[in-house]
């Protein structure tokens, strides 16, 4: 795939990468989006316990994140896949070096239309083992365990391993936890990672 960044323009707003960058930053700034957009895509790492699993999220679920992610996932703007890993690449590499990454896939109908799996595309450059071990049974009934079917032939791949389940948005009743429950009996450790924590979760009760 080609990157539009060869033009040294922001992948989000198409302005020069040093847009609104302070003087000092201009010497070492290296990114695929401009300084202004990056500063709006706020990193606010959180580590919480939810449904018995350790959950980590990186981005603040603000309107800028929402509009970028919406454009990427629902308007199929694949070029933006490079945007989300930017600031969290080093942290992920450090924290999950020994983990097998399992991403939450989109349904087949989405894949046929979009041509890509949004999370897989985001996580690919990290270089850690990355697979999906289950399929969504259509029509997908979110919140129902029957909607997720583990691929039997992949059991050996994840058995007794440390797993990192990755999804885009973490919500209190996220389906990622149903999948975690399905995998839990077969593995050593399961941790959950979301790009952002949906604001509806009241952290005080966790």
């Amino acid at each position, binding site marked *: *795939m*080609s990157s*539009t960044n060869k*033009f040294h*323009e922001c992948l989000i707003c*198409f302005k020069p990468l040093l847009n609104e960058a302070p003087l000092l930053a201009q010497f070492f700034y290296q990114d695929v989006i401009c300084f202004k957009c990056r500063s709006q895509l706020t990193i606010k790492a959180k580590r919480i316990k939810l449904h018995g699993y350790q959950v980590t999220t990186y981005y603040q679920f603000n309107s800028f994140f929402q509009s970028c992610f919406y*454009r990427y996932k*629902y*308007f*199929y*703007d*694949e*070029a933006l896949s490079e945007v989300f890993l930017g600031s969290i690449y080093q942290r992920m590499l450090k924290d999950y070096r020994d983990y097998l990454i399992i991403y939450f896939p989109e349904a087949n109908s989405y894949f046929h239309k*979009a*041509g*890509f799996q949004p999370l897989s595309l985001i996580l690919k450059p990290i270089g850690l083992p990355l697979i999906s071990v289950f399929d969504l049974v259509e029509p997908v009934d979110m919140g129902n365990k029957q909607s997720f079917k583990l691929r039997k032939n992949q059991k050996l791949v994840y058995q007794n391993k440390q797993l990192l389940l990755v999804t885009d948005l973490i919500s209190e009743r996220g389906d990622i936890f149903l999948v975690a429950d399905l995998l839990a009996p077969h593995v050593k450790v399961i941790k959950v990672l979301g790009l952002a924590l949906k604001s509806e979760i009241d952290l005080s009760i966790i």
Partner: protein
Amino acid sequence: MECPRCGNQDQRYFYLGSKGYYCRKCVSYQRFLINEPVPYYLPYHSENDNDYYLTFQLTKPQEVAINQIATIAKNSNLVVYAACGAGKTEMMFPIIKNYLNSKKRVGFAIARRQVVLELSERFNKAFPNLKIVKVCQGYTKDTFGDLIICTTHQLFRYYQYFDLLIIDEPDAFPFKGDDILHNIAKSSCKERMIYLTATPEGELLKLPQVKLFQRPHQQPLPYPKVVVAPKLILLSKLSKFLRISQKALIFLPTINLVKFYSKLFGWPGLHSQSSQKEAIIDEFSKQKQGFLFCTSILERGVTFPKIDVCVLYADHIVFDLAALIQIAGRVGRDPSYPNGQVLFLALKKTFKVEQCLQQINFMNA
């Protein structure tokens, strides 16, 4: 490479994705592949009666204009340049009927969501046997029908779909000045485009025009009274206006000012962030007396009987020529109250206000 939808030729905006090249300039209207084939649409077919029903008689000048529209539309796109309240929408009914009778697809697009909702009501009454579909934010589940009324933002759903596309008020934000939206509109239409406006400009001036400045009740457009004064005096003038008028819209340039003044005077306020916009408008429509403080959200497309308007800070950058003409055009539409008041309160006299007065004079001449 050229984007068939938005016309972009700038190579920086093309990206090779999993399904081929797509244009990132218009991607916020959903990805459009460069080699995407024109979707196959079933031929328009409806057993419904395409006849329209009016509760009033069209005037002679309107009938003349309708004939001109039909003649010009045979060969070319056109602009209907008409005063606010001259009946532009109703003048489109015959050509819509003709297109539908010929099994062709018709769309009616306008920049503002609020206007789509109101227009779809009017179309529903006029064409009671057709399936009129409104497509705008909050109404996107059912997007196909006999006649589609939509915001210009929703035209991306109809690539090469319409045989006749009527763009109402192309001078309205956010359609105005947005090249992507303009090109998406053009690419959604296969055959004929008709623009309806009270303030044609730019490219539209090159198209053949059908003019109509007379309102159906033959009364001239109300001429705005302009007061230029410091803030305190403007406020006292506004207070006086609220004492004299029975029912009025008070236009303010920003949401914060709407919130402030509606609280200060104890009347409801309406702006793009208001919840229950439709309920507020409904309530105001039903009232015989009352005031509504609003932003330019209500500058066009809405009709309230027996109404006056006041624009506070008419010199603000938000109120351009088209906006001021449209706001003034809210008044005097009701034949039983053709001479309502239009009051512009400004901190300084601006060229736009001057132009607006000239334009109304020109239409009344």
